[in-house]
């Protein structure tokens, strides 16, 4: 058992293992199942996420509300023109995340990671890096295990819900999970994983949850997009040797404090922030007639 990053790091160090190894072993032990069974469970989810991350890259599917459609395809087409400023990988990752998110808003099948609103970030980062380094299936499973372990630390000590802690708690946490996982995939150290996760969360501290018309759609898709780039940036920072001044457990505690102090208008109620702009209100009226 581990309750925070410090305890998890200690376990890893004592046993000379990576985050994913420890996380999977503990998961198996606590649920009285085998390590193979845990891995098989991840694999099932990975198949679903993989489909979702590719589904709308070449074909636009409208959202159930009719509000949005086709951004993944637009970005994918744009990347093919080779005029992009961000790296191909970063943008491809964003396209994956947008695709996954569009599957979500069109009532397709996704895996909450950690929530439905933030479902694109973790798989997009892991899949795009897996493509880059030709990672095998086991390495991808390990990466999702590390991401989940970091998510569980945030949940134990703060929250993963936008309604409770704002978008920083949802998309911010997803990015932190992804960052830690990708550092491990790239052969970084456990400390580097947590530096990357800390920096990711710090970068979006205070990010509010302000979905227009209360629908998990706008600005959520773009929060997934920045979530990918934020995670990949912080992985590069950490692998370059840059450290977070504040350790992960303290960053998580700060995120929670900030989340709790957000007014309720900025926590998924669809009232404040972008939802409260004239455009946001007009869309709300158009969809709900009030």
């Amino acid at each position: 058992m581990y309750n925070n990053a410090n305890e998890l790091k200690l376990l890893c160090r004592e046993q000379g293992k990576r985050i994913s190894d420890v996380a999977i072993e503990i998961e198996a032990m606590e649920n009285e199942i085998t390590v193979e069974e845990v891995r098989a469970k991840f694999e099932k989810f990975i198949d679903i996420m993989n489909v979702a991350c590719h589904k709308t890259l070449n074909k636009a599917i409208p959202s159930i509300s009719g509000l949005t459609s086709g951004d993944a395809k637009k970005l994918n087409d744009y990347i093919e023109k080779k005029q992009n400023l961000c790296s191909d990988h970063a943008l491809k990752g964003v396209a994956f995340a947008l695709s996954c998110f569009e599957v979500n808003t069109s009532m397709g099948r996704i895996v909450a990671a950690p929530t439905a609103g933030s479902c694109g970030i973790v798989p997009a980062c892991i899949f795009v890096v897996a493509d880059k380094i030709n990672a095998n299936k086991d390495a991808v499973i390990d990466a999702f295990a590390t991401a989940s372990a970091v998510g569980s630390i945030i949940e134990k000590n703060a929250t993963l819900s936008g309604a409770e802690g704002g978008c920083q708690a949802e998309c911010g946490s997803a990015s932190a999970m992804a960052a830690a996982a990708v550092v491990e995939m790239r052969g970084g150290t456990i400390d580097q994983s947590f530096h990357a996760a800390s920096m990711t969360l710090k970068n979006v501290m205070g990010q509010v949850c302000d979905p227009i018309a209360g629908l998990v759609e706008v600005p959520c898709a773009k929060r997934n997009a920045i979530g990918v780039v934020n995670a990949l940036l912080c992985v590069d920072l950490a692998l370059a040797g840059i450290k977070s001044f504040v350790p992960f457990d303290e960053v998580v505690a700060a995120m929670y404090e900030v989340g709790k102090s957000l007014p309720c208008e900025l926590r998924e109620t669809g009232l404040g922030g972008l939802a409260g702009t004239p455009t946001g209100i007009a869309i709300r009226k158009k969809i709900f007639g009030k």
Partner: protein
Amino acid sequence: MGRGLFGILGPSMIGPSSSHTAGAVRIGRMCRSVARGDIAAATFFLHGSFAQTYKGHGTDRALVGGLLGMNTDDERIINSLELAKKENMKIQFLPTNLGNYHPNTVRAEMVNKNGDTCNLIASSIGGGEIQIISVNGFPANISGIYDALIIRHMDKVGMISKIAALFEKNKLNIVSLYNNRESKGKIAITIIEIDGDVPEYLADLVSKIDGILSISVVNKI
């Protein structure tokens, strides 16, 4: 205790929102269990955020998908309203104010093909998790994490101990037990959550106890 790795990654579900879609599917499945038998008609009174965003979030399709027995990740959910129509189910959605409840709450009134009516109030409390707050007007607390039995019976001495004895004999561990009654000496309702699976023969055994009126098995979802 946390929820483990798959409390963070997962569930696999139909989007767009775990509370408005996945939770709603599970509530729909609960409605199906409580109604005991094929549903002829259902009316959903939607409260709070459910009332406001049910169309844009597909909560209507999710509730009906559950009513049809679908899982939270069934890709047919998007077509559930049409499927229900094909099965001649009469479905209605009425935005309303139920009072002081969680913002994602619904009251469902169902009629099954035998003409039996029943109702429940349930909230989708986040991350796809739900809570059944009342069944047929009786306060309840069912999470859907455990198998549960909803037993209506005469309110008389010894009913609960007889039921509990049966559970013990069948080596079923009781997680929670709620008992309430309409009025003294009339009808009472006992809701029991257990570890593991409710064996198929259990409902039969319980219904043989003198004074039992009806029993619904609500499988974990």
